[in-house]
């Protein structure tokens, strides 16, 4: 167990610690609301596990800077222009007026090359993985829905049994 291993894995251990704390709360408490709190902690630790896996060294959030977006867009447009130019050039031998279109296409293609260079220069940015973020966004919203459902059930149980103490509820069930 070297220091390097510890530096590479401490995030996972932290996640496991939080997960086990949530698990302990669910096991050891008998108040139903406290159980919901434990499940919430467990759930958040799973989010953190996924987010931790998506991180890349020296990376940044997967949001592309506006300058690069602009460059990429114009590169894309001129790429289409260049393709049209190529077709026109091919047709230049057949039709005379095709030559004018081909020239125009060449100018656009030059412009496109400049934009592509800009993209290449900025392409060194390292982005962290966007996929775990997306999955966890969905999971958070589903999680709050299930939490709300669990709490509604707690309220209903309290209405019928007069208590939210798990052992007391079991006693009442056996006694009836």
């Amino acid at each position, binding site marked *: 167990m070297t220091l390097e291993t510890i530096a590479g894995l401490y995030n*996972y251990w932290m996640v496991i610690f939080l997960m086990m704390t949530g698990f302990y709360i669910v096991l050891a408490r008998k108040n139903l609301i406290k159980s919901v709190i434990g499940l919430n902690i467990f759930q958040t630790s799973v989010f953190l596990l996924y987010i931790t896996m998506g991180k890349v060294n020296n990376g940044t959030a997967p949001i592309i800077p506006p300058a690069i977006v602009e460059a990429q867009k114009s590169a894309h447009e001129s790429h289409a222009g260049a393709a049209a130019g190529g077709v026109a050039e091919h047709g230049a031998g057949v039709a005379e007026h095709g030559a004018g279109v081909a020239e125009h296409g060449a100018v656009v293609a030059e412009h496109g090359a400049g934009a592509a260079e800009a993209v290449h220069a900025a392409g060194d940015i390292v982005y962290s993985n966007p996929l775990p973020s997306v999955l966890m966004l969905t999971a958070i919203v589903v999680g709050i829905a299930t939490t709300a459902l669990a709490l509604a059930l707690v309220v209903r149980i309290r209405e019928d049994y007069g208590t939210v103490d798990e052992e007391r509820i079991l006693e009442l069930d056996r006694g009836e």
Partner: protein
Amino acid sequence: MNIIVFALLALLAITAVAIARLRELWAAIMFTGIYSFLSASWMMILDAPDVAFTEAAVGAGISTVLMLSTMALTGQGEDIPRKSSWMPILIVVVTGATLVYGTLDMPALGAPDAPVQLYPSPSYVERSVEDMHGLPNVVTALLASYRGYDTLGETTVVLTAGIAVLLILRRDPKEASATEPSAGDEPA
């Protein structure tokens, strides 16, 4: 390693243990809000601002409000621990040890050649600007377009949960007195 990360992780651990040890439900719920906010901060450091915003709004905001209102409705603030408390600790320690043993094979934190990073994430980052006509946020592009069916399913789940909550909590004044003795079948 960053000192801010260490402080944050220590605070997270302390908050989680505090929630486990607190007897008073009101304080535990407040600590849950703090816990959510701290984990949102950690997500921010881990390059997931979208998830951090959602966690801060939903985890620290909505779920705290929901729990507080449930506590107000049930009116029971005290939480008594079970008598024999060594069994849960044993189970938790054994499970945790197994999981830690499992992490020894995991790729190191932030490794660019980890299996998660190789497929299909780079293609999403490379293609999303072109596919989405210049939308800068890749997470938004993924959420709303590439994995749009996921989001549709998520909204279905939220709708179902909302309907279920309404049905569970509905009180019909006419039936309230008639169904009182037979209503015990639901929580079983």
